[in-house]
Structures are given as structure tokens and as C-alpha cells.
């Protein structure tokens, strides 16, 4: 087991290598010069001398290969340099932003799981009943409404009209409610339907018929057998979503003024803040790999068929 996890963690190295290479390439293909972007953002007119000075300061006047090797060396030592924009160490800023994003991501995952698991099962068990209809309506709504619009609507009703919750910002639990709801809506929409479908599929399987003929109670069949298998795609999906949420939820962070990782990254892109972009790419790659690993481990635990030979020895 430990060896398996170790192997998976080692996979981070080539993935990060490719990710940094692609990022580096894209930054340099883009027609915007980071030094120029910096000066534009500062409302300073980019005169040639100033540009040259900034390029030198940022180390952009060195040969591309040197720049890239240097980047790799620094990343290998987990040194992400200082932000062009704020002149502060990138890692300190990330330490400040990441918890905000993680907080929102975890609550959203938790909330969507709490809603979509029971709703998905009930919708399958009581197929075509009112509860199935309700779950379908929620899914259509959640899947089709743009996230920013949902965010504004929630703010309008719950913060402005009813005055129950704050409009924006981060702080108490009250600040968490609306962004969590906004983020969860689309996940609930997706996962409820997903779970319903896979539960229905399992109910058609021979083992369910067999269990029924053996006289096992429906509830036991459902919870002990069906759900265990039906929930696998759900977990895979959640794991991937987790990775996505942890790397920042740009729209929600923007709408709710949430001081998170996604907003930080988007700003870095506009400013061509290369150290920040590279650090972000590195952390995102690691997060995705870790989330995938968690998903695989959970599946290993839930479904012994996968584990016996194949994956663990892979």
C-alpha cells in the first residue's frame, strides 16, 4: 500500500515537469511582455529604458533555456520567488489565499454530498414519483443556470431583500452560506442524476434479484449491496470536482469577493506575474494528483474487485 502511494506520488515529478514546460511555453508565446504588463497595470508609461530595466529585474533578458532551467531548479527546491506585482514571496501569498479556497471547497463538497446522495437514491427507488420529479427539476435548474447569475440571485433574495445573510466577504459562517450554495447547485444537479442512474442500473442486476428471492429486506439490499457499487462513479466524480474546487472557483470568488486562490491566479494571468502562475500550476498539478489518489484509494476500499490484482500492483 505504502509502496503504491509512493509510486503515485513520484508520478507528480513528470507531470509537474510537463505542466511547467507547457506553462513556460504559453507565457512566452503570448504577445504580452510581463514587464510591459507590469508597467501598464501600474499606470506607468512603458518607455524603452524602463522596460529594459524591468526585464532585467525580472530576469527576462536572459536566454529562454537559462530561464527555464532556473525555474525548474527553484521549483525543485520549492522556492517560488516573489510576485512581480506585490513584491512579496509567492508562497506567503498562497498560504494566505489557499485556506479560503479550501474552506469553500470542503463545505461545498460536503453539502452537495449530503444532498445528492439521499436525493439520488430516493429518486431511483421511487422512480417517477414526486421526489424523482423534484430531483429532476433541481437538476435541470442547477445544470442550466449560469453560476454568476445564481450567485447574484441568491445575494438579491437572501442578502438584500430578506437581509438574512451578508452580501460578500469572508469571516463568519454566515459568509459561507451563499457561496457554498452557489457552488453546490451544479454539483447536486450532476451527482443526483448520476447516482440515480447507477442505482437503477444496479437494481437490474442478477444479484439483486437473487437477494430478493432469498428474502433479504430491500433496505439491506440497497445499503449493503447496491449502494456500495452504485456509488463508485459518484466518488470518482466528487474527487475530480474536489481537485477543481481546490484550485479555485473563479466565478464564485469574484461574485462573493471571496479572497481565494482562483481570483489570485486570474489577476496573475492578466499581469503576467510569472512566479505566481508557475506556483499555481505546480500546486494545481499536485492537488489533482492527490485528489485522484484519494479517489482511487476510496474505490480500493469500497470495491475489492478492483484491488485484488490490477491497480495496486500497477
Amino acid at each position, binding site marked *: 500500500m505504502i509502496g503504491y502511494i509512493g509510486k503515485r506520488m513520484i508520478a507528480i515529478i513528470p507531470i509537474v515537469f510537463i505542466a511547467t514546460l507547457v506553462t513556460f511555453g504559453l507565457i512566452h508565446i503570448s504577445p504580452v511582455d510581463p514587464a510591459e504588463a507590469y508597467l501598464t497595470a501600474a499606470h506607468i508609461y512603458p518607455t524603452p529604458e524602463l522596460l529594459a530595466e524591468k526585464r532585467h529585474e525580472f530576469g527576462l533578458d536572459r536566454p529562454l533555456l537559462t530561464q527555464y532551467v532556473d525555474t525548474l531548479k527553484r521549483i525543485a527546491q520549492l522556492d517560488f520567488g516573489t510576485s512581480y506585482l506585490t513584491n512579496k514571496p509567492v508562497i506567503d501569498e498562497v498560504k494566505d489565499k489557499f485556506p479560503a479556497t479550501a474552506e469553500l471547497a470542503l463545505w461545498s463538497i460536503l453539502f452537495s454530498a449530503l444532498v445528492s446522495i439521499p436525493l439520488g437514491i430516493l429518486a431511483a427507488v421511487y422512480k417517477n414519483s414526486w421526489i424523482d420529479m423534484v430531483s429532476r427539476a433541481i437538476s435541470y435548474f442547477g445544470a442550466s443556470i449560469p453560476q454568476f447569475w445564481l450567485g447574484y440571485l441568491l445575494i438579491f433574495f437572501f442578502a438584500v431583500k430578506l437581509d438574512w445573510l451578508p*452580501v460578500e466577504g469572508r469571516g463568519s459562517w454566515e459568509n459561507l452560506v451563499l457561496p457554498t450554495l452557489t457552488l453546490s447547485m451544479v454539483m447536486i444537479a450532476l451527482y443526483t442524476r448520476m447516482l440515480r442512474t447507477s442505482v437503477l442500473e444496479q437494481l437490474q442486476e442478477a444479484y439483486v434479484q437473487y437477494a430478493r428471492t432469498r428474502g433479504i429486506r430491500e433496505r439491506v439490499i440497497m445499503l449493503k449491496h447496491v449502494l456500495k457499487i452504485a456509488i463508485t462513479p459518484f466518488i470518482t466524480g466528487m474527487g475530480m470536482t474536489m481537485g477543481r474546487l481546490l484550485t479555485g472557483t473563479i466565478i464564485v470568488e469574484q461574485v462573493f469577493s471571496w479572497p481565494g486562490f482562483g481570483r489570485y491566479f486570474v489577476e496573475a494571468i492578466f499581469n503576467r506575474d510569472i512566479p505566481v502562475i508557475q506556483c499555481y500550476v505546480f500546486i494545481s498539478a499536485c492537488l489533482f494528483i492527490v485528489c485522484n489518489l484519494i479517489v482511487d484509494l476510496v474505490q480500493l476500499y469500497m470495491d475489492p474487485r478492483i484491488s485484488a490484482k490490477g491497480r495496486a500492483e500497477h
Partner: protein
Amino acid sequence: MSVQQRKRSTLIMITTLLLVLIIAGCSNKENSSASSSASGDQAASAKSITMSWPRDIGTMNPHTYNPSQLFAQSMIYEPLVSYQKDGKLEPALAESWTISDDGKVYTFKLRQGVKFSDGTPFNAEIVKKNFDSIMINKKTHSWLGIIGVLGKTEVVDDHTFRMTLTEPYYPVLQDLSVVRPFRFLGAAGFPDDGDTSKGIKVPVGTGPWMLADYKQDEYAVFKRNPNYWGTAPAFDQITVKIIPDAETRVLAFEKGDLDLIYGEGMISLDAFQQLRENDKYVSELSDPVGTRDLLLNSSNPKLSDVRVRKALQQGFNKKAMVEGVTSGLEEPADTALSKNYPYTNVDLKPIEYNVEQSKALLDEAGWKLPAGGTVREKDGQKLEFELIFDKTDPIQKAMGETIQAEWSELGVKVNLTGLELTVQIKRLKANDFDLYFWYNYGAPYDPHSFINVVASPGFGISETLTALPMKKELDEQVHAALSSTDEKKRQELYTSILTTLQEQSAIVPISYVKKTAVYQKKISKFVFPANRDENPFVGMQLSNP
């Protein structure tokens, strides 16, 4: 490994990983909730106001640029002279000043009894220390004219500061009134090596406000400076909430979380209209703070003929366009600079909308509509241009589309290209464009910065004007105006320069951009600052609750 064992170790792994994530998520919770409740309490106090701003206020270093926000810097730090309505320069930290006859020596009598917010005295010594620190990074500030001519600075006595220029340059005082870099940090703020460009220790200034509490990307709280020398502000505290989204800003305002939304482009045109119609709030527009111009690049052979440029200016209904696109937030402009700057109150003949005259001018210039064609031609070339605009700016896009439609009636084809701002500026500088939306700098930078770019290459404007037959004289007039020590002569030169530019129609005035302010009735008096970059809290009054 047995199935049971494997299951157990897997479970342990998963739990550990999840725990790590959860701890990461919660580690910061404690202090953030503490601070937010603090800011909540403060908001409840009656003698305070809350404003929103789209970006973090930054490091509050008076001598550096990004990411510090100008309005916030101007709350803490003060200039020697202050730019007031219609370009009047008034004493601030300097009580009075004298200028030598040759225009090269400026002697400032500093205001006595001024203290920094930490209680240390403001004197000539600290003024010199700030100047020295600024001049270490001369290159960074080279966009400001005074930097190029500043020779020597000296402490004459405790309250007299003198600077000597290498050559006369009249807008010295205007340059000293800008928000950065010539403002004054107290001794406690200086790093040990005296070079502020890498950072300051604490933001200590002489201004009416001081930074009391701050959380990056969330909020900043300013409290009254107890040592302030001037009229104390009418309220104790200002909270600036960082709200990046324009619609959220409006919702927060409607809920009453914000007392004021102020700035340029802070809320959408629709939202402004909607708030303006609501009696619960007060909405105001400032005097023009800048002009939106359309550059017609005369170095393009098709645009080198003044008749073509005039025809294009006459060929669209500016008034209808500006009112339609901006819903009255901007005002149609007849001249490249509005009249509320020094030296710009000059009578210039507007180039009026007239489609018939426009068509006649194009015919006269040799651009004829071919039989059955829709685009004018001359010597086998089509009268076709590319208009580049900032793709994130809905106003530029809408105006571009209007101009495209109206000029197509004249037989002129316009292709619209939306670009990222940085790319757009790059193309301006490289003189690689036909038509370009450009803005002047506003007070206190204009009109001298405007005429400076007309004559100095490297900014794209001088290049745009290269085909003007009188370009050389124009440049000479600009240099003469900038170094002139005679007020009357300077006005004559400005009149001549502005008249030439108006007649040549290469810088087509479109509209005057204004600042907007929307506020709750709790604010009984609001005054727009004359300096575009200054904070709007000077002169603000609150009604008694």
C-alpha cells in the same frame, strides 16, 4: 497483505489525507473571523463611512506604484502643493514658494508645526530624505517631467527647502502635486538603507488619515490622524471593502453595507441609471476628468490628407453616439482637452456633424465610390481601416460598432479588432494602427503631459501626427511652452498648439469621461477632488443621525 489489513491501511491513508486538507482549510479561520467581526463593529459606528474598491489598496508606500491604489495613498501622504479646481495650485505642506527669474530655482517655505501621524516633526530634513529616496529610482519615475530636470535639492534651514533644476520646466508644481512619487514618508517608515523602492517599514504620513487595520484583498480601515495639521475630517473612520465585482458592489450598496461607490467605471451603466432613478440614493457626476479621443493615424497614407480626417470626424453623429452608448454618463466632446485645465480655456471651432460635407470632402480628396460599389476607392485602393479597441471595455466596443455603421454610409469600411489592453498599448507605441481609442491623462497631468506626448516620440501620439505639414513647428512650440517662464507667452503657445490640433483632426475628440459617485443620504456633502487621483473624502460631511 490480507483484505482486512489492506482495508484498514487504506482507511488510515484516506483519513490522513482528508485531515491534512481540512486542517489546511481551517487553519486561518480563527483570525479571519476575529478580524471580520472587528470590522463589523466599526461599520456600526455612526461617524464612519464604508466605501468599496475593486482592488486591494496595496502596500501604502508613497514612492512606488503597483499595487498601491492612488486614492488610498493620498489619504495618508500629502504633497508640497495641492492641485485644486481649474488647476489652481494651493499651499499644502509648503506654505509658500518662490521661483527664481530664470525659472530654475524653487524655494519652498514649509508649513510649521506639521507632525507625522507618529508625532515626529515634518521639516526640510525629511523632505530632502524623501526626495533623495525617490531619485535613487529615477528611471522608474522618468514618466514625470520634473524627474528629467531635477538637479540639486538642499535643506536651507529647518523649514526651507530648495531645489534647483538643470533647465526651466514650468509644470514643476503640477508634477509635485501628483499622488506619487513626491509625497512624504515619516522617518520611521524608511528602511535602513534609505531606499524605499523595495519597501517601507510603516506607512507614516502627515495626511488626515492613517491605516488602522488591513487584511489583504478583504478590507482596510483608516482612522483619523490625531496629529493632522489641517481641518480634521468630519468623521472618525473610513472602511474600504475590497469588492472586485461591479454587480456585487451595487447589491452591497443596496443592502446598505456601503455608503459610497466612487470612481471611474466602478459600476455598469445600467446599474448607475437604476440607482440614479432611486430617490433613496444620491448620484453625481464630476466635471470632465479626461477625454476619450479617437486617433486617426496620419502616418497611414490614406489618413495623411487632412480632408479625409475631417470627413471622418464630420461623418458620425457624436452627440447621439455618446448619449446612446453612455446613457449620459459621458458628455460629447468638441475639443481634445476640456476647458477646466490651465491654459485650455481657448475658443476652438468645433468640427460639426455633417454627412453631406463629409461625402463632398472625400470626393474632393479623390476617394470615389465605384459604380455599384459600397467602399470608396482611389488608385485601386479601398478606403478601409482597422479600429483597435480594448475588448474588455463595452463602451469602446459599442462606439466602435456605431462608427463602423455610420462610416459605412459614407463608403468607408472599418474592421474592428478587440485586443487585450497591453497588446493595444504595444501597437500604439509601435505606430501599428489606423484608428485607436486614446485618453489623455487628466488633472494634474494635463495639459502639459498632453502637449509633451504630441512632441515626444515613444508614446505613439507624436508618431500619429507625423504627416501633419506643420509637425516640426508644432514640436518647437511644445518645447517652448514647456520651458517658457512667461505666463502670457505660454498661453499664446498653448492656444496655437491646441488650434492646430483642432484643425488637423488627427485627434478626434469623442467624449469627456466623468467620475461617478453614488451615495446614501447619510452623506450630506460630497465634493469631487480636482486632482483625478486624490481621495474623495476631503470636504465630505455626514448628516447627524
